[in-house]
């Protein structure tokens, strides 16, 4: 007689990107926003740069749920080359939520500087745009008595796919520990307009730019690799898990070359009381 054998599948060839329970994540992030704004800082209002992409849309939805729509100020900041669909997609969010909206064109501010640098390449021009948007966002926050809320996700933070001291500048960020694929799942749970979920993610700093073309890998694949890599699996083990060595190498190289972007500026240590080295106080102290 042959006994039946039940075997554990040890090496699934396609490990999916990490999942998310939208309700759990949403409740936790709304509590985080209320705590950071209202409890810790006594600020009732949030200001969000609304790009027309899914990250800032999800951030606006979370802020509206946490603080009430009337306390959320969305700022659209197009440059002359920005895609018109970015503006109209952002408008879908504004109308769905009933939040406050203002459009402030950054073309004059950006070109006011770039006229002295006519040879600046697309990368430099994109960085100037991202930094000017933060100038606007912080000034609007001062005017409105509101806190700027960041929209960067964990995938772009890990891959270094952002402008340092621009996209990462707001003092709080609800999405920074969510992979891009988790942001999409959360967007579906929150009811973000489908057009924003379906379109190819783009920094929209250049015409026809897409994140996945820039990065050379899809978000689904990058997130699956990143989630395993951060746990501690080696490249060899990741290959054994079914990931392409070239994809693993690409992700590893981007993560390892951008640790500096996830830190504050490096300060020369000269004393026994160096801030954040010896003198250690939590951010909420």
């Amino acid at each position, binding site marked *: 007689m042959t006994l039946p054998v039940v075997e554990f599948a040890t090496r699934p060839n396609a490990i999916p990107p*990490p*999942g*998310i*329970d939208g*309700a*759990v*994540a949403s*409740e*936790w992030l709304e*509590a*985080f926003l209320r*705590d*950071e704004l209202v*409890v*810790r800082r006594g600020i009732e209002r949030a200001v969000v740069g609304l790009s027309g992409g899914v990250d800032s849309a999800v951030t606006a939805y979370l802020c509206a749920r946490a603080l009430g729509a009337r306390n959320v100020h969305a700022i659209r900041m197009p440059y002359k080359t920005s895609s018109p669909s970015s503006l109209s997609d952002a408008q879908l969010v504004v109308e769905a939520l009933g939040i406050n909206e203002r459009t402030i064109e950054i073309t004059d501010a950006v070109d006011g500087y770039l006229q002295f640098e006519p040879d600046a390449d697309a990368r430099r021009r994109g960085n100037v745009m991202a930094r000017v948007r933060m100038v606007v966002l912080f000034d609007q926050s001062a005017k409105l008595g509101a806190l700027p809320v960041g929209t960067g996700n964990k995938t772009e933070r890990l891959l270094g796919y952002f402008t340092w001291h621009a996209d990462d500048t707001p003092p*709080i960020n609800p999405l920074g520990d*969510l992979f891009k694929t*988790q942001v999409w799942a959360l967007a579906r749970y929150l009811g973000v307009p489908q057009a924003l979920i379906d379109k190819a993610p783009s920094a929209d700093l250049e015409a026809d730019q897409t994140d996945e073309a820039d990065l050379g890998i899809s978000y689904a694949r990058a997130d699956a690799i990143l989630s395993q890599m951060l746990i501690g699996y080696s490249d060899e083990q990741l290959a054994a898990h079914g990931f392409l060595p070239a994809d693993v190498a690409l992700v590893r190289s981007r993560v390892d070359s951008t640790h500096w972007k996830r830190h504050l500026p490096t300060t020369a240590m000269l004393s026994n009381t160096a801030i954040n080295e*010896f*003198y*250690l*106080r*939590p*951010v*909420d*102290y």
Partner: protein
Amino acid sequence: MKQLYALEPVKADPDAASVCRVAIVQTKPKKGALGVNLAHLVKAFEQIAKDGKTDLVVLPEAALTGYFLEGAVYELALSASAMAAKLAGAWLEANGGWPVDIACGFYENDGGTYHNSAVYLTVGKRGHEILHVHRKMFLPTYGVFDEERFLSRGRKLSVFETRFGKVALLICEDVWHSIMPTIAAVKGARMLVVPSAAPGRGIEHEGELESIAVWRSLLSNAAAEHGVFIVYAGLAGFEGGKGMTGSSAVFDPRGKVMLEAPPLGECILRAPIDLRECDVARASLPLLGDLSSVLPDLLLDDELPLPKRRDDAAGR
């Protein structure tokens, strides 16, 4: 055959009060603001006192300062006697009545050595008395945790006598090591009081944060294996983006959740604990009795990486 190493059988104290009316205060302290948090605690005590007789009030780990303090722990740590005086003072200010026992987690300054501790005191007509101070033995120092950078660990797990029989205090990671509730139970504890501060994580789990489910599972298993009540007091609130999972709860000696608080926000949990339930649970599942007879063979095992003499332990 006579067992050479058998431990004293665990006996219930016939004079101990059998019912302990427990109130857990799930606090959400303002970071570092001891005075503000104490004033807030008086309000909670007033509410508890108004709701009827209470025998034991339990508060979370670092209940009056917040958990993540880094170097500020040296500014906020108190001696156990100072902490007990503040808790007793708050109870009296709230006209809580007596006798009452209070258990609370706090950062302890023991003459310049700092611990993550919990104090258990009793407040009576003639003042208050500390029955026990437990110093956290397992200081998590990995990932988001950095306790051993700032604190020294405790060296002993004791059980202590209360009006309700023997009780043990275990703080947070202490209870993750199954040998800790095991030793507390073998030493005679019938109730484990667990002040905790658990930063929540894991959003892939269905319906709740994964870390909450893990906590519930391990507390339930510990209660059921040893036939003990577990009173778990969880800190609530966000600390610089790290959300504490609250979820204070009482587990009966069969491992069943008697009641559980939500993860977010402050609240008071009340439950009458009938310690005779321990006897009933142990009669139907006598694992603790079995353990008491087998444990010496397990521990007096030359193959275990244990020090052979006290001197060896001191040198580790």
